[in-house]
């Protein structure tokens, strides 16, 4: 006797050849699963894009110093008296003039209307130092110029400029009630800073009646200097600060929202998958019923029950995979690189980010499709295998 594999191949080939004559019902599986995979991949691509935007912010050899116990920049305060100690800590890189490459910054929120909308939305205003481009060399001014010290001038990240009203060169926006002039637009490699507006720290502290910065950002000589730098500051009883590497800090900022989007994505996908599964079951039961005489004839000729089961499941999986690939392709074409912004619940500010339809997400979507196909084909296949041959032949 021929091997089970040869039988499976022969029966599967036969089944697939009958698909064109059952195109309508077969498309129920393909389109249903394309919808599931498309939605799943799109939602996960949103979470992935958000996570990637925040986790791409920062370098391992750059550190953020916050008040001890502060979860983020918003709730942190660094006293002015602490700043020189931080800047003189061991391990900080020096510039050509021997000055530490570090900046005391103020992290605040302001409200601006989105383009075409009237309701204001939170935007991060970062008061920083004139040497910020040395501290963050990935940032470059792409339009206009850098703000001047002590002036009410701002530069806007490219994402923020695209999102909010008034953030164009020469424009003016209200920060703490006063008009601040937009003098430049900057890029920072697509990271979270592109959703912020930057200005001089002293100018914004003065406008906001704040006496102290919220954090100090510092460039280390190397990643290995993190521990000595941290030890120096945390062992000083007068400091009470937390020291975090930038990637670690920003990864923690993305966790809540990316988990929420992921959870939503999986929930919606599971609900849709249940619908698609019933569609697949219905289609495959109908296919088995329509072909009951053909299946019985093959079994009368000597084809085994197991090859019939496997071949029907393979047919369902092939149709499901076609749907999965279609859905993944649609998600990729429609959403990959699509930019949106959303409120980061951990910073209460808008973050602009791109959907990222990664190869891993495409594979995940296609695996979902295969699993739906597997279960969609299993029970109809078992029915076909259990059908008494003589009875099925008579039914024809």
């Amino acid at each position: 006797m021929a091997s089970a594999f040869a039988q499976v191949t022969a029966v599967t080939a036969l089944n697939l050849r009958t698909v064109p004559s059952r195109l309508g019902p077969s498309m129920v599986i393909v389109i249903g699963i394309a919808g599931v995979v498309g939605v799943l991949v799109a939602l996960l691509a949103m979470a992935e894009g958000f996570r990637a935007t925040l986790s791409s912010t920062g370098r391992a050899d750059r550190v953020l110093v916050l008040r001890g116990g502060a979860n983020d920049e918003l709730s942190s305060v660094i006293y002015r008296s602490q700043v020189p100690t931080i800047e003189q800590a061991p391990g900080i890189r020096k510039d050509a003039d021997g000055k530490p490459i570090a900046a005391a910054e103020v992290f605040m929120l302001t409200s601006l209307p989105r383009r075409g909308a009237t309701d204001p939305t939170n935007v991060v205003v970062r008061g920083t130092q004139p040497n910020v481009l040395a501290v963050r060399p990935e940032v470059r001014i792409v339009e206009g110029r850098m703000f001047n010290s002590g002036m009410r001038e701002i530069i806007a990240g490219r994402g923020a400029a695209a999102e909010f009203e008034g953030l164009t060169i020469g424009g003016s926006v209200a920060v703490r009630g006063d008009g601040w002039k937009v003098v430049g637009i900057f890029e920072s490699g697509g990271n979270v800073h592109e959703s912020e507006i930057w200005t001089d720290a002293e100018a914004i502290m003065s406008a906001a009646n704040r006496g102290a910065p919220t954090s100090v950002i510092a460039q280390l000589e190397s990643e290995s200097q993190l521990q000595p730098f941290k030890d120096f500051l945390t062992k000083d009883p007068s400091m009470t600060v937390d020291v975090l590497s930038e990637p670690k800090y920003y990864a923690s900022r993305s966790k809540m929202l990316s988990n929420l989007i992921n959870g939503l994505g999986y929930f919606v996908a599971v609900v849709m998958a249940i619908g698609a599964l019933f569609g697949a079951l219905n289609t495959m039961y109908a296919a088995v019923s329509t072909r009951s005489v053909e299946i019985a004839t093959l079994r009368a000729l000597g084809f085994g029950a197991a090859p019939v089961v496997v071949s029907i499941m393979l047919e369902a999986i092939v149709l499901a995979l076609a749907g999965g690939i279609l859905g993944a392709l649609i998600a990729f074409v429609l959403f990959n690189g699509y930019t949106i912004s959303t409120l980061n619940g951990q910073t209460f500010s808008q973050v602009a980010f791109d959907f990222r339809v990664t190869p891993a997400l495409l594979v995940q979507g296609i695996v979902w499709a295969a699993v739906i196909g597997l279960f969609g084909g299993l029970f109809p296949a078992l029915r076909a295998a259990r059908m008494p041959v003589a009875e099925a032949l008579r039914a024809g």
Partner: protein
Amino acid sequence: MAETLIALDRISKHYVRGKEKIEVLHELSLNIEQGDFLALMGPSGSGKTTLLNLIGGLDQPSAGTITVSGQRIDTLSGGRLAQWRARNVGFVFQFYNLLPVLTAAQNVELPLLLTHLSKSERARRVQIALTVVGLEDRAKHKPSELSGGQAQRVAIARALVADPTLLVCDEPTGDLDRKTADEVLGLLQTLNREHGKTLIMVTHDPRAAEYAGHQLHMDKGRLIEAGAQA
């Protein structure tokens, strides 16, 4: 004296429908010789198709034994029985049961897909089988492009392509006009007389039964009469 090919001993078959037990065959015993052409006749519900299914290994008896070429087939598992059918039995059905998406040659090739024969050897045997039934020029036609008689001849080619010991035919001419039926029956008779195939045929049609070497009549699950032609 010819050798006994099939021996049925006190065969019973019943089905259960709800609480009702329906007895289709009742302690039926029968020997069929190698090279025989047997016609099973009887009214609807007499059990002839059930008997044919038991002989062809499509169903199992509720009681009794079935021995074919010295092998008990009533005790085989479903998988073993499928293998036994593939090696020993060719089926011809009333409505041909050809797969509509396949050509005549591909339909005939189906039983050979269960063997280890090479593709070229399968093609050669398909060609021979189609030649035997006179349809070598219809090899690439699909069932929808064939007449009823041609389709049944393709089904006969499929039944004999793997050179089985036994051909079982369930109303093979039930869907054909008189002239075409005679051609098909003549072909079956040739397979019996010239190729030595053992044939068992269920039919309602007394004229069809005349082509057989023996006739058995059934009623209510029992054999009631036997006759033989010259």
